[in-house]
Protein backbone atom coordinates (compact mmCIF):
# COMPACT_ATOMS: atom_id res chain seq x y z
CA UNK A 1 0.00 0.00 0.00
CA UNK A 2 1.63 3.29 -0.98
CA UNK A 3 2.10 5.52 2.02
CA UNK A 4 1.49 8.61 -0.06
CA UNK A 5 -0.35 8.80 -3.34
CA UNK A 6 -1.55 11.55 -5.59
CA UNK A 7 -4.76 11.93 -3.60
CA UNK A 8 -2.94 12.28 -0.29
CA UNK A 9 -2.51 15.78 1.13
CA UNK A 10 0.83 17.43 0.62
CA UNK A 11 3.13 18.13 3.52
CA UNK A 12 2.16 21.80 3.27
CA UNK A 13 -1.54 20.96 3.51
CA UNK A 14 -0.92 18.70 6.48
CA UNK A 15 1.09 21.39 8.22
CA UNK A 16 -1.70 23.90 7.68
CA UNK A 17 -4.14 21.46 9.27
CA UNK A 18 -1.75 20.87 12.16
CA UNK A 19 -1.72 24.63 12.67
CA UNK A 20 -5.50 24.40 13.08
CA UNK A 21 -5.12 21.74 15.75
CA UNK A 22 -5.83 18.70 13.58
CA UNK A 23 -4.28 15.76 15.42
CA UNK A 24 -4.92 13.32 12.59
CA UNK A 25 -2.89 15.53 10.29
CA UNK A 26 -0.20 15.66 12.96
CA UNK A 27 -0.14 11.86 13.06
CA UNK A 28 0.12 11.67 9.27
CA UNK A 29 2.95 14.17 9.21
CA UNK A 30 4.70 12.22 11.93
CA UNK A 31 4.48 8.99 9.95
CA UNK A 32 6.02 10.69 6.94
CA UNK A 33 8.93 12.28 8.78
CA UNK A 34 9.62 10.25 11.92
CA UNK A 35 12.31 8.01 10.45
CA UNK A 36 14.03 10.88 8.69
CA UNK A 37 14.10 12.93 11.88
CA UNK A 38 15.27 9.96 13.92
CA UNK A 39 18.09 9.40 11.46
CA UNK A 40 19.02 13.05 11.75
CA UNK A 41 18.95 12.87 15.55
CA UNK A 42 21.07 9.74 15.73
CA UNK A 43 23.59 11.28 13.36
CA UNK A 44 23.80 14.45 15.46
CA UNK A 45 23.60 12.99 18.96
CA UNK A 46 25.23 9.61 18.46
CA UNK A 47 22.98 7.96 21.01
CA UNK A 48 19.76 6.13 20.22
CA UNK A 49 18.03 6.87 23.52
CA UNK A 50 18.66 10.59 23.43
CA UNK A 51 17.83 10.65 19.75
CA UNK A 52 14.41 9.16 20.48
CA UNK A 53 13.86 11.82 23.13
CA UNK A 54 14.84 14.43 20.58
CA UNK A 55 12.38 13.07 18.00
CA UNK A 56 9.52 13.43 20.44
CA UNK A 57 10.63 16.91 21.37
CA UNK A 58 11.03 17.81 17.70
CA UNK A 59 7.47 16.84 16.86
CA UNK A 60 6.14 18.54 19.95
CA UNK A 61 7.88 21.65 18.60
CA UNK A 62 6.28 21.07 15.21
CA UNK A 63 2.87 20.98 16.84
CA UNK A 64 3.54 24.17 18.75
CA UNK A 65 5.17 26.07 15.91
CA UNK A 66 2.98 24.97 12.99
CA UNK A 67 1.17 28.30 13.01
CA UNK A 68 4.40 30.09 12.20
CA UNK A 69 4.83 28.20 8.94
CA UNK A 70 4.11 30.30 5.84
CA UNK A 71 3.57 28.33 2.67
CA UNK A 72 4.56 31.25 0.48
CA UNK A 73 8.03 31.20 1.99
CA UNK A 74 8.78 27.68 0.80
CA UNK A 75 8.04 23.99 1.10
CA UNK A 76 7.36 22.27 4.39
CA UNK A 77 10.34 19.90 4.34
CA UNK A 78 13.04 22.54 5.00
CA UNK A 79 10.84 24.17 7.63
CA UNK A 80 10.36 20.84 9.40
CA UNK A 81 14.07 20.16 9.09
CA UNK A 82 14.88 23.47 10.78
CA UNK A 83 12.44 22.85 13.62
CA UNK A 84 13.75 19.32 14.12
CA UNK A 85 17.38 20.45 13.94
CA UNK A 86 16.75 23.08 16.63
CA UNK A 87 15.05 20.56 18.91
CA UNK A 88 17.91 18.11 18.39
CA UNK A 89 20.45 20.86 19.10
CA UNK A 90 18.59 21.72 22.30
CA UNK A 91 18.76 18.09 23.33
CA UNK A 92 22.47 18.08 22.50
CA UNK A 93 23.11 21.15 24.64
CA UNK A 94 21.21 19.60 27.52
CA UNK A 95 23.65 16.74 27.84
CA UNK A 96 26.40 16.79 30.42
CA UNK A 97 28.71 14.21 28.94
CA UNK A 98 31.26 15.03 26.21
CA UNK A 99 29.78 15.49 22.73
CA UNK A 100 29.46 12.35 20.62
CA UNK A 101 30.53 14.08 17.43
CA UNK A 102 34.29 14.16 16.86
CA UNK A 103 35.95 17.48 17.60
CA UNK A 104 39.53 16.45 16.97
CA UNK A 105 40.87 18.72 14.23
CA UNK A 106 43.13 15.93 13.01
CA UNK A 107 40.23 13.56 12.48
CA UNK A 108 39.39 12.30 9.02
CA UNK A 109 35.71 12.71 9.82
CA UNK A 110 33.89 15.43 7.88
CA UNK A 111 33.76 18.86 9.49
CA UNK A 112 30.56 20.56 10.65
CA UNK A 113 29.63 22.01 7.22
CA UNK A 114 30.06 18.61 5.58
CA UNK A 115 28.18 16.92 8.38
CA UNK A 116 25.35 19.40 8.01
CA UNK A 117 25.26 18.74 4.27
CA UNK A 118 25.23 14.98 4.80
CA UNK A 119 22.47 15.30 7.38
CA UNK A 120 20.33 17.31 5.01
CA UNK A 121 20.86 14.86 2.17
CA UNK A 122 20.00 11.88 4.36
CA UNK A 123 16.93 13.62 5.71
CA UNK A 124 15.68 14.43 2.21
CA UNK A 125 16.44 10.96 0.84
CA UNK A 126 14.69 9.24 3.71
CA UNK A 127 11.72 11.55 3.42
CA UNK A 128 11.54 11.11 -0.36
CA UNK A 129 11.62 7.34 0.02
CA UNK A 130 8.46 7.55 2.11
CA UNK A 131 6.62 8.92 -0.93
CA UNK A 132 7.62 6.18 -3.35
CA UNK A 133 5.07 3.53 -4.27
CA UNK A 134 5.50 0.58 -1.95
CA UNK A 135 6.69 -1.82 -4.66
CA UNK A 136 9.41 0.56 -5.85
CA UNK A 137 10.54 1.53 -2.36
CA UNK A 138 10.83 -2.12 -1.34
CA UNK A 139 13.05 -2.93 -4.31
CA UNK A 140 15.31 0.06 -3.65
CA UNK A 141 15.58 -0.71 0.07
CA UNK A 142 16.54 -4.30 -0.66
CA UNK A 143 19.07 -3.29 -3.29
CA UNK A 144 20.71 -0.39 -1.47
CA UNK A 145 20.27 -1.09 2.19
CA UNK A 146 19.96 -4.85 2.46
CA UNK A 147 22.69 -5.71 -0.01
CA UNK A 148 20.60 -8.04 -2.15
CA UNK A 149 21.43 -8.53 -5.81
CA UNK A 150 18.72 -8.10 -8.43
CA UNK A 151 18.38 -11.88 -8.72
CA UNK A 152 18.12 -12.25 -4.96
CA UNK A 153 15.44 -9.55 -4.85
CA UNK A 154 13.58 -11.39 -7.60
CA UNK A 155 13.68 -14.62 -5.58
CA UNK A 156 12.89 -12.86 -2.32
CA UNK A 157 9.84 -11.05 -3.66
CA UNK A 158 8.79 -13.78 -6.07
CA UNK A 159 8.66 -11.43 -9.03
CA UNK A 160 10.42 -11.63 -12.41
CA UNK A 161 13.89 -10.19 -12.69
CA UNK A 162 12.66 -7.82 -15.38
CA UNK A 163 10.08 -6.43 -12.96
CA UNK A 164 12.80 -5.85 -10.39
CA UNK A 165 14.82 -3.89 -12.91
CA UNK A 166 11.78 -1.89 -14.06
CA UNK A 167 10.83 -0.99 -10.51
CA UNK A 168 14.40 -0.09 -9.62
CA UNK A 169 14.70 2.27 -12.55
CA UNK A 170 11.27 3.75 -11.99
CA UNK A 171 11.99 4.25 -8.29
CA UNK A 172 15.26 5.99 -9.04
CA UNK A 173 13.47 8.24 -11.52
CA UNK A 174 10.91 9.27 -8.90
CA UNK A 175 13.59 9.76 -6.31
CA UNK A 176 15.64 11.92 -8.67
CA UNK A 177 12.56 14.02 -9.34
CA UNK A 178 11.84 14.44 -5.64
CA UNK A 179 15.44 15.31 -4.92
CA UNK A 180 15.80 17.66 -7.87
CA UNK A 181 16.72 20.55 -5.62
CA UNK A 182 19.59 18.64 -4.05
CA UNK A 183 20.70 17.24 -7.41
CA UNK A 184 21.13 20.75 -8.73
Amino acid at each position, binding site marked *: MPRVSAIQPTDEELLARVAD*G*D*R*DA*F*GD*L*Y*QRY*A*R*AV*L*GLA*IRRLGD*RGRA*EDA*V*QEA*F*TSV*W*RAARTYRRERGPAAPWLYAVARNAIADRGRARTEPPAEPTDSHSDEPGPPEQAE*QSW*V*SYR*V*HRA*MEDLPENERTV*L*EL*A*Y*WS*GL*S*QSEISDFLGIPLGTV*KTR*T*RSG*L*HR*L*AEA*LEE*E*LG
Partner: protein
Amino acid sequence: MSGPDFVDLVGDEGTPEELERLRRAHRMLIEAGPPPELSPRLSDAPAAPSSRSSLVPRRRRGAAFLLAAAVVASAFGIGLLVGDRNSSGFTQVLARPMHGVGQLASARATLAVGEQDSAGNYPLKMTVRGLPSLEHGGWYELLLSKDGRPTLSCGSFDVATQGVTVRLSVPYDLSKFPDLYDGWVVVKREPKQRQAPVVMTT
Protein backbone atom coordinates in the same frame (compact mmCIF):
# COMPACT_ATOMS: atom_id res chain seq x y z
CA MET B 1 31.01 4.06 1.06
CA SER B 2 29.85 1.05 -0.94
CA GLY B 3 26.67 0.02 -2.59
CA PRO B 4 25.27 -1.83 -5.54
CA ASP B 5 26.75 -1.32 -8.97
CA PHE B 6 24.82 1.30 -10.90
CA VAL B 7 24.99 -0.43 -14.27
CA ASP B 8 23.92 -3.75 -12.73
CA LEU B 9 20.87 -2.00 -11.35
CA VAL B 10 19.65 0.13 -14.22
CA GLY B 11 21.66 -0.98 -17.24
CA ASP B 12 23.07 1.48 -19.72
CA GLU B 13 20.02 2.38 -21.75
CA GLY B 14 18.98 6.01 -21.85
CA THR B 15 20.39 9.37 -22.72
CA PRO B 16 23.61 10.46 -20.99
CA GLU B 17 21.63 13.16 -19.17
CA GLU B 18 19.06 10.68 -17.92
CA LEU B 19 21.70 8.22 -16.79
CA GLU B 20 23.65 10.93 -15.01
CA ARG B 21 20.51 12.05 -13.19
CA LEU B 22 19.79 8.50 -12.10
CA ARG B 23 23.39 8.02 -11.10
CA ARG B 24 23.27 11.03 -8.80
CA ALA B 25 20.12 9.71 -7.12
CA HIS B 26 21.94 6.39 -6.83
CA ARG B 27 24.89 8.07 -5.09
CA MET B 28 22.62 9.93 -2.71
CA LEU B 29 20.88 6.71 -1.72
CA ILE B 30 24.22 5.16 -0.90
CA GLU B 31 25.38 8.25 0.95
CA ALA B 32 22.19 8.50 2.99
CA GLY B 33 22.32 4.90 4.17
CA PRO B 34 19.28 3.19 5.62
CA PRO B 35 16.96 5.17 7.87
CA PRO B 36 16.66 3.79 11.40
CA GLU B 37 13.69 1.66 12.28
CA LEU B 38 11.27 3.20 14.70
CA SER B 39 11.14 1.55 18.08
CA PRO B 40 7.71 0.81 19.60
CA ARG B 41 8.18 3.98 21.63
CA LEU B 42 8.23 6.01 18.43
CA SER B 43 5.66 4.07 16.48
CA ASP B 44 3.07 6.76 17.06
CA ALA B 45 3.24 10.52 17.15
CA PRO B 46 3.84 12.01 20.59
CA ALA B 47 0.82 13.26 22.43
CA ALA B 48 0.39 16.82 21.29
CA PRO B 49 0.44 19.37 24.09
CA SER B 50 -3.07 20.24 25.15
CA SER B 51 -2.40 23.94 25.54
CA ARG B 52 -3.19 24.78 21.93
CA SER B 53 -6.55 23.13 21.69
CA SER B 54 -8.96 21.03 23.67
CA LEU B 55 -8.02 17.40 24.24
CA VAL B 56 -10.96 16.19 22.21
CA PRO B 57 -11.63 17.83 18.83
CA ARG B 58 -15.10 19.25 18.41
CA ARG B 59 -16.08 16.68 15.84
CA ARG B 60 -15.25 13.92 18.30
CA ARG B 61 -17.12 15.21 21.29
CA GLY B 62 -19.99 12.87 20.55
CA ALA B 63 -17.57 10.00 20.62
CA ALA B 64 -16.13 11.35 23.83
CA PHE B 65 -19.58 11.29 25.37
CA LEU B 66 -19.93 7.66 24.40
CA LEU B 67 -16.53 6.95 25.86
CA ALA B 68 -17.53 8.64 29.10
CA ALA B 69 -20.57 6.43 29.18
CA ALA B 70 -18.31 3.50 28.56
CA VAL B 71 -16.27 4.47 31.60
CA VAL B 72 -19.35 4.15 33.76
CA ALA B 73 -20.33 0.92 32.10
CA SER B 74 -16.89 -0.56 32.44
CA ALA B 75 -16.89 0.29 36.12
CA PHE B 76 -19.65 -2.28 36.37
CA GLY B 77 -17.65 -4.97 34.70
CA ILE B 78 -18.07 -4.70 30.95
CA GLY B 79 -14.29 -5.07 30.76
CA LEU B 80 -14.52 -8.82 30.84
CA LEU B 81 -11.95 -11.17 32.21
CA VAL B 82 -12.25 -14.33 30.18
CA GLY B 83 -9.12 -16.20 31.18
CA ASP B 84 -6.63 -17.75 28.80
CA ARG B 85 -8.59 -20.68 27.49
CA ASN B 86 -9.43 -19.27 24.05
CA SER B 87 -5.88 -18.99 22.89
CA SER B 88 -6.61 -19.46 19.19
CA GLY B 89 -7.73 -16.78 16.77
CA PHE B 90 -5.94 -13.87 18.39
CA THR B 91 -4.41 -11.64 15.74
CA GLN B 92 -2.26 -8.96 17.29
CA VAL B 93 -2.59 -5.48 15.86
CA LEU B 94 -0.78 -3.52 18.56
CA ALA B 95 1.56 -4.42 21.39
CA ARG B 96 2.99 -2.40 24.22
CA PRO B 97 5.52 -3.41 26.87
CA MET B 98 4.70 -2.42 30.43
CA HIS B 99 6.98 -2.04 33.41
CA GLY B 100 6.48 -1.75 37.10
CA VAL B 101 6.86 1.44 39.06
CA GLY B 102 8.02 2.20 42.57
CA GLN B 103 8.61 -0.88 44.68
CA LEU B 104 7.39 -3.06 41.82
CA ALA B 105 9.84 -1.64 39.29
CA SER B 106 11.03 -5.12 38.35
CA ALA B 107 7.55 -6.20 37.23
CA ARG B 108 7.12 -6.64 33.49
CA ALA B 109 4.17 -7.18 31.20
CA THR B 110 3.36 -7.36 27.53
CA LEU B 111 0.00 -6.08 26.44
CA ALA B 112 -1.28 -7.14 23.02
CA VAL B 113 -4.37 -5.78 21.30
CA GLY B 114 -6.15 -8.10 18.89
CA GLU B 115 -8.33 -7.35 15.90
CA GLN B 116 -11.69 -5.78 16.56
CA ASP B 117 -14.43 -8.40 16.58
CA SER B 118 -17.73 -8.23 14.70
CA ALA B 119 -19.45 -6.75 17.75
CA GLY B 120 -16.94 -3.91 17.97
CA ASN B 121 -14.93 -5.20 20.91
CA TYR B 122 -11.16 -5.35 21.03
CA PRO B 123 -9.58 -8.40 22.68
CA LEU B 124 -6.58 -7.75 24.90
CA LYS B 125 -4.02 -10.29 26.00
CA MET B 126 -1.66 -9.41 28.79
CA THR B 127 1.21 -11.48 30.11
CA VAL B 128 2.36 -10.28 33.51
CA ARG B 129 5.42 -11.22 35.52
CA GLY B 130 6.59 -9.94 38.85
CA LEU B 131 3.36 -8.67 40.36
CA PRO B 132 2.63 -10.19 43.77
CA SER B 133 -0.64 -11.94 44.51
CA LEU B 134 -2.77 -9.62 46.60
CA GLU B 135 -4.21 -10.62 49.92
CA HIS B 136 -7.38 -9.50 51.66
CA GLY B 137 -9.46 -9.53 48.49
CA GLY B 138 -7.33 -7.11 46.51
CA TRP B 139 -7.08 -7.14 42.72
CA TYR B 140 -5.38 -5.40 39.84
CA GLU B 141 -7.12 -3.31 37.24
CA LEU B 142 -5.89 -2.44 33.75
CA LEU B 143 -6.88 1.00 32.48
CA LEU B 144 -6.23 2.99 29.37
CA SER B 145 -4.32 6.16 30.11
CA LYS B 146 -3.75 9.57 28.62
CA ASP B 147 -0.57 11.44 29.49
CA GLY B 148 -0.01 8.91 32.25
CA ARG B 149 -3.41 9.41 33.87
CA PRO B 150 -5.81 6.44 34.12
CA THR B 151 -8.97 6.90 32.04
CA LEU B 152 -10.99 3.89 30.91
CA SER B 153 -11.11 0.57 32.74
CA CYS B 154 -10.18 -2.44 30.64
CA GLY B 155 -11.00 -5.02 33.32
CA SER B 156 -9.62 -6.60 36.44
CA PHE B 157 -7.41 -9.55 37.18
CA ASP B 158 -5.47 -11.29 39.89
CA VAL B 159 -2.17 -13.09 39.81
CA ALA B 160 -1.98 -16.38 41.63
CA THR B 161 1.57 -17.00 40.51
CA GLN B 162 4.50 -14.87 39.43
CA GLY B 163 3.59 -15.21 35.79
CA VAL B 164 0.09 -15.09 34.37
CA THR B 165 -1.62 -14.42 31.07
CA VAL B 166 -5.04 -12.83 31.14
CA ARG B 167 -7.48 -12.04 28.36
CA LEU B 168 -9.79 -9.09 28.45
CA SER B 169 -12.19 -7.47 26.04
CA VAL B 170 -13.04 -3.79 25.81
CA PRO B 171 -15.73 -1.92 23.89
CA TYR B 172 -13.66 1.20 23.28
CA ASP B 173 -12.54 2.22 19.83
CA LEU B 174 -8.83 1.52 20.09
CA SER B 175 -8.30 2.77 16.56
CA LYS B 176 -8.24 6.17 18.28
CA PHE B 177 -5.02 5.13 19.97
CA PRO B 178 -2.96 7.23 20.71
CA ASP B 179 -5.27 10.17 20.09
CA LEU B 180 -7.78 9.80 22.91
CA TYR B 181 -5.53 7.54 24.96
CA ASP B 182 -1.84 6.86 24.60
CA GLY B 183 -1.02 4.01 26.94
CA TRP B 184 -2.12 1.74 29.71
CA VAL B 185 -1.57 1.52 33.44
CA VAL B 186 -2.23 -1.17 36.01
CA VAL B 187 -3.49 -0.03 39.39
CA LYS B 188 -3.82 -1.94 42.63
CA ARG B 189 -7.29 -2.09 44.16
CA GLU B 190 -8.06 -3.04 47.72
CA PRO B 191 -11.43 -3.31 49.43
CA LYS B 192 -12.55 -0.16 51.22
CA GLN B 193 -9.64 1.77 49.80
CA ARG B 194 -10.39 4.70 47.50
CA GLN B 195 -6.77 5.10 46.56
CA ALA B 196 -5.64 2.95 43.64
CA PRO B 197 -1.90 3.36 43.20
CA VAL B 198 -0.40 2.82 39.76
CA VAL B 199 1.86 -0.23 39.86
CA MET B 200 2.64 -0.63 36.14
CA THR B 201 2.67 1.61 33.11
CA THR B 202 3.49 1.44 29.41
